[in-house]
């Protein structure tokens, strides 16, 4: 059922009801931003930064505000009940989507960054002491580095890194060595790199980590809405996700954690809703998941997330992943025709829908500016992965990334734009 390298549960033998064949041009019609009149056609190749939103997500949020806007878990009146139901329904949907054992294991946060910080503060401070170690990778987003820098400085914890090949693949064979002295208490790593596109062998890393008694945090920011995700099959202990990359709204993210771990952890933020009893000088925590949800949460955004997940389910995650991979493979082919272009990361069969590159003699910002003049949106810079760019010996890169609505003709436009950039600067 599960591919042990990528942890893709049932990727080959999906047993869901038959769907219409996946057609990105039709999918695109569900996203109003592409129909918005503008002087140049929008060619959006920056879905790794944030995804576009289908009409059903916008409608769900709008309907919530128009028909049952109320604070949740508080009022007993009708619309408060409805709002609470919608909010908890989104949690249930997401829990099922990632194959969590229970919705109680899903905590709403602001984004992935806050989900990782929650683990660093609540679990990390209760579990790590001076002399312990944390294992990370050089391809982490800053959100899976900086919280550990803070903790490491505060607790005297050592940071170790799984080495990486020149093609941006983790050398997992080195992991047992990093864990051998038993001091590493956590292995925290990205599922799909937001720069290299590498799909890391999450299940294998988790298995090795567990053999050495370490806890596993998986940053699924770039994978959750791009491939089937089964957190239990992968064997993770914590998983961080962010809704705005999943066709959902900004302002809401999700932390999944194994129940025993979450139960044992102290709260992260204190305030309303996360308590059961409050006295003047002490309080008792609420049960899971509300123990970690202090203050009024992003209710409309949860509703939007629920709609986004329902939408992704109708597309089918196997089909979305296949589409991503096909576009990446096509992009690698087209980009290979551009002289002076260096594509970062592994071969097409080892990556998701992300293709980053540099062009000899042309700064990534200038590449992105030339492309912008053709209506093509790509990201240029270090993509919140400065150590990764240092490791590759480049200050910055340009990046194209895909989602379910991305088209081959966008890749064609990208390739043509790159030829043009080259001409402008080759004087």
């Amino acid at each position, binding site marked *: 059922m599960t591919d042990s390298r990528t942890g893709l549960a049932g990727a080959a033998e999906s047993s869901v009801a038959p769907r219409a064949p996946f057609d990105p041009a039709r999918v695109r019609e569900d996203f109003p931003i592409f129909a918005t009149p503008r002087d140049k056609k929008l060619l959006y190749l920056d879905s790794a930064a944030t995804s576009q939103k289908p009409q059903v997500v916008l409608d769900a949020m709008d309907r919530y505000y128009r028909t049952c806007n109320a604070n949740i878990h508080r009022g007993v009146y009708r619309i408060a009940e409805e709002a609470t139901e919608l909010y908890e329904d989104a949690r249930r949907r997401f829990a099922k989507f990632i194959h969590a054992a229970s919705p109680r294991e899903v905590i709403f946060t602001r984004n992935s960054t806050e989900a990782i910080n929650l683990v660093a503060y609540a679990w990390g401070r209760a579990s790590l002491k001076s002399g312990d170690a944390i294992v990370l990778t050089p391809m982490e987003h800053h959100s899976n580095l900086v919280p550990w820098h803070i903790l490491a400085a505060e607790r005297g914890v050592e940071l170790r890194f799984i080495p990486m090949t020149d093609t941006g693949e983790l050398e997992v064979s080195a992991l047992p060595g990093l864990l051998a002295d038993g001091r590493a208490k956590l292995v925290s790593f990205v599922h799909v790199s937001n720069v290299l596109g590498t799909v890391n062998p999450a299940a294998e890393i988790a298995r090795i980590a567990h053999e050495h008694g370490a806890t596993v945090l998986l940053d699924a920011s770039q994978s959750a809405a791009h491939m089937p995700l089964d957190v239990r099959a992968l064997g993770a202990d914590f998983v961080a996700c962010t809704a705005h990359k999943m066709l959902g709204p900004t302002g809401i993210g999700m932390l999944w954690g194994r129940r025993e771990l979450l139960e044992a952890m102290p709260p992260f933020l204190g305030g309303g809703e996360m308590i059961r009893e409050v006295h003047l000088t002490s309080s008792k925590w609420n049960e899971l998941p509300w123990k970690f949800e202090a203050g009024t949460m992003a209710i409309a955004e949860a509703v939007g997330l629920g709609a986004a997940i329902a939408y992704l389910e109708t597309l089918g995650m196997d089909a979305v992943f296949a589409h991503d991979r096909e576009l990446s493979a096509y992009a690698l082919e087209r980009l290979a025709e551009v002289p002076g272009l260096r594509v970062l990361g592994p071969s097409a069969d080892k990556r998701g829908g992300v293709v980053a590159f540099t062009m000899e003699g042309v*700064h*990534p*910002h*200038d590449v992105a*500016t*030339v492309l*912008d*003049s053709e209506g093509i949106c790509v990201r*240029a*810079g*270090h993509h919140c992965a*400065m150590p990764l*760019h240092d490791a590759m010996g480049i*200050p*910055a890169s340009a990046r194209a990334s895909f989602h379910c609505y991305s088209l081959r003709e966008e890749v064609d436009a990208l390739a043509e734009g790159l030829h043009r950039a080259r001409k*402008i*600067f080759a*004087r």
Partner: protein
Amino acid sequence: MDELFREHILEHYQHPRCKGTLESPDLSFEDANPLCGDRIRMDFKLADGKLAEIRFSGHGCSISQAAASMLCEHVEGMSLDEIKKLGRDDMLEMLGIHLGPVRLKCALLALKTLKAGIYGVNQWPGEDEEEA
């Protein structure tokens, strides 16, 4: 876009003036734009209240590097009083292009580095005007 990559910008980018370092500078300063990784270092030699010599080094996009080249060419030999008066608009006039908020930082990094190096005024040119 052709706007952004006008002849004179590409020309300065590909054939920068005042590029390099000084043997024993009176002052040096290095600054970076953390957003995009553009980096500029400047070496200065001062004499008789003037900026006698200036050299820049670093890397970044065409706008940031062309701006550095144009600015250095412009200020070499100028009195420090005159340099003090240079502002955001002078730099944008030299470049002669319209820039959005992100690329504006690329354009102004050289001027920021110059002013921080000579006067210790470490802020983005035009920041006061924005707040006022």
